[in-house]
């Protein structure tokens, strides 16, 4: 703590001390330039300040971000977008007109620009930090002010936040399109091999029965019976398929009852608590439903649980579903299970899945989605 504060003050004063030394040095080694002397000292110092800020500003600002974490609760974190649209233009757009070697050099130089150059906000921070930091270190009441200023100047800008958002939305869109396509393939395949094939066989069987009905009525009757059995099987397959796409009870009753219906089909005692007062948007409802279905399936298949508890909690802007079992734990969304898919699907709606599942259990999964 104390060391960190000392480091903060030292860091805040590093650049100004450097500039002061540069000014003193110049004052001593330059001869007497008469009336121009002080003007020259000021000019030289500004030049040193300019170069030093240009070359080290970004690194110093990043060090500040790390050191200030304790007072700002992580609000300085967040990926920063490459600044300087102009530098970017210069190297990427114009770069296309150069030969590969020059274009490569320009790209490298852009990377360096991004790594070194501070933004205007960061520069401004470097200028006020020498005053603000020591004051805040000495006077604790000033720390709120300091953290507010730091968040303004060092935190991600609106453009940074929007940039990250666009990036994650772009990724979400790609995932979504891919998942949709996979789902369509699955449906096509399922219909082709299932219900469609059954209907063909029903048609054929009925055709054969028609041909036999006058001459050999008992055989015809048997074939008709077979056709009836086939139609039953086709319907059964279609029902399974529909249940996988969109469970009818979800459409008819909404999320809470759909989960209750699901709970009854699970070979474990599952208790469902809480209510959902407002119906969710259909796509969101179905994402949460399939998340809970996956979690319940995990509890049955992997956790060796003897009971599961599902709890709904809805407040103004958020629905939380907690699925807890008393099993042996060890569930991990990263291990390529269905949980990764659940996480991805929830992500499309800015929803999250948090799992705590220590070895030996129990497992507690929290699904959280925004709902208007």
């Amino acid at each position: 703590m104390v060391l960190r504060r000392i480091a903060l003050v030292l860091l805040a004063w590093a650049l100004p001390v450097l500039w002061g030394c540069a000014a003193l040095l110049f004052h001593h080694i330059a001869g007497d330039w008469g009336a121009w002397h002080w003007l020259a000292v000021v000019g030289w110092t500004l030049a040193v300040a300019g170069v030093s800020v240009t070359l080290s500003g970004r690194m110093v600002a990043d060090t500040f971000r790390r050191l200030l974490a304790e007072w700002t609760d992580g609000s300085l974190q967040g990926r920063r977008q490459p600044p300087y649209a102009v530098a970017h233009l210069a190297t990427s757009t114009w770069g296309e007109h150069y030969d590969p070697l020059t274009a490569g050099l320009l790209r490298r130089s852009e990377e360096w620009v991004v790594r070194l150059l501070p933004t205007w906000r960061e520069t401004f921070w470097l200028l006020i930090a020498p005053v603000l930091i020591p004051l805040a270190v000495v006077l604790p009441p000033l720390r709120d002010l300091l953290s507010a200023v730091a968040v303004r100047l060092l935190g991600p800008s609106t453009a940074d936040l929007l940039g990250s958002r666009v990036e994650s939305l772009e990724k979400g869109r790609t995932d979504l399109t891919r998942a949709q396509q996979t789902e369509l393939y699955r449906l096509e395949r399922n219909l082709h091999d299932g219900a469609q094939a059954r209907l063909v066989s029903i048609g054929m069987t009925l055709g054969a029965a028609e041909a036999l009905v006058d001459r050999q009525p008992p055989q015809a009757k048997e074939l008709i019976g077979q056709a009836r059995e086939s139609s039953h099987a086709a319907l059964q397959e279609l029902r399974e398929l529909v249940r996988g796409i969109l469970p009818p009870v979800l459409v008819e009753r909404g999320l809470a009852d759909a989960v209750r219906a699901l709970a009854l089909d699970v070979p474990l005692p599952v208790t469902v608590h809480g209510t959902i007062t407002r119906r969710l948007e259909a796509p969101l409802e179905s994402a949460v439903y399939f998340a809970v279905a996956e979690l319940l399936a995990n509890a049955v298949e992997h956790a060796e649980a003897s009971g599961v508890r599902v709890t709904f909690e809805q407040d103004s802007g958020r629905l939380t579903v907690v699925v807890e079992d008393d099993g042996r734990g060890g569930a991990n969304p990263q291990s390529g299970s269905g949980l990764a898919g659940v996480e991805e699907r929830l992500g499309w709606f800015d929803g999250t899945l948090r799992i705590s599942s220590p070895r030996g259990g129990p497992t507690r999964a929290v699904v959280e989605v925004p709902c208007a």
Partner: protein
Amino acid sequence: MRIVVAEDQYLLREGLTHLIRSHGHHVVAAVADAHSALRALRQHRPDLAVLDIRMPPTHSDEGLQLALQIRAERPEASVLILSQHLEQLYARELLANGAAGVGYLLKDRVFNAATFMEAVERVAAGGTALDPEVVSRMMRAEPASSLASLTDREKDVLSLMAEGLSNQAIAGRLFLSEGAISKYTTSIFAKLGIEHNGAANRRVRAVLAYLNSPRAV
């Protein structure tokens, strides 16, 4: 027997009406939505209402709500719900206030006219008809250990009891004597610790209460 049919799909409604009439019963009204169905049920007070679960206006679970409403108004009213898909949840809601005169079947069951009409007549007479599919889902949802003490044959008998069949009907299905079935049921109730009481529809509730009730296993 006087029957009201409510089903929004024209072909199925006509098919049902035709099937019921051909078995010598009287279809007093065949309607296509929940509002007309409620009106018809209040007006005709039929021996049985055959209701599609999903009907206009909202195409959700009108048929089920209608059944619950009409049974709340007239507890002795018999209803048979038909659906494209089955839910244990719905079955349990339907049976919550007694299994007498309640049926819940897949629409496919209409394909087999004889069994279907048997179920229709059973429900109209105050019995129960629970789809074998719902029953098998209930059995599947049981932790393996809870039915482990039963023999395969006893499980078959248990399923048929849950469907609402009488001992006589179970005997017919399994090609056994009524006496043999009676022995099986006594043995099942003893093994599972279910209170034994005679009537087939009360037996359904007892079995359902056993299946899927939280128990130490």
